[in-house]
């Protein structure tokens, strides 16, 4: 069975500082990995994905994530946080022929 864990319920960073939102996964084969963001009172928006190839993937709004197979991780990063990045972030894992399994989400709070 596949699963995904987001070990932090909340991450607090100051504007301009780098941010990391952690995600680890468990699957029996090759994973498809995703990050989504949910702004208050809005639906989920796709940020980026890893399917195969380069371990570092770049996505929307300056975010990037690194696939680390040995550590089964897919942490979301941004070099310089903005107050507008404050939102709920979801990591998700899937495989060919299956629906995505989402983590419980991490609330990112960026202070000015």
């Amino acid at each position, binding site marked *: 069975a596949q699963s995904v864990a987001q070990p932090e319920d909340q991450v607090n960073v100051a504007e301009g500082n780098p941010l990391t939102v952690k995600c680890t996964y468990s699957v029996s084969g090759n994973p*498809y990995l995703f990050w989504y963001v949910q702004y208050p009172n809005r*639906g989920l928006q796709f940020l980026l994905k890893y399917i195969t190839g380069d371990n570092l993937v770049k996505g929307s709004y300056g975010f990037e994530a690194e696939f680390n197979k040995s550590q089964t991780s897919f942490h979301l990063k941004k070099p310089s946080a903005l107050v507008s990045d404050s939102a709920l972030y979801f990591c998700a894992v899937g495989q060919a022929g299956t629906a995505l399994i989402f983590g419980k989400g991490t609330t990112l709070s960026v202070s000015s």
Partner: protein
Amino acid sequence: GAGVSQSPSNKVTEKGKDVELRCDPISGHTALYWYRQSLGQGLEFLIYFQGNSAPDKSGLPSDRFSAERTGGSVSTLTIQRTQQEDSAVYLCASSLGVTGGGSYEQYFGPGTRLTVT
């Protein structure tokens, strides 16, 4: 429209009543998913449809929950004899396909907030 739409946006119902939630996916998307989002619980997978294949119902929490997808497009999630624990936001998503990496990302609708009193 260009995105996934869901109706109603809000639904308040009394315990024991049946409710129907509707999802209109993006045109051309063959895969459709239903999720439930409860406070502090993240997104809980309920069911997905892929083309004409039998749906994956493995996430449905009880036999009070069912879903249909007519004509490979619109889907309806039905909850019978609603309970207070069914209160949540129900999200629908669609994608170009379940298999294949390049077109796998899901596009979500705004959700239906269900409140069972």
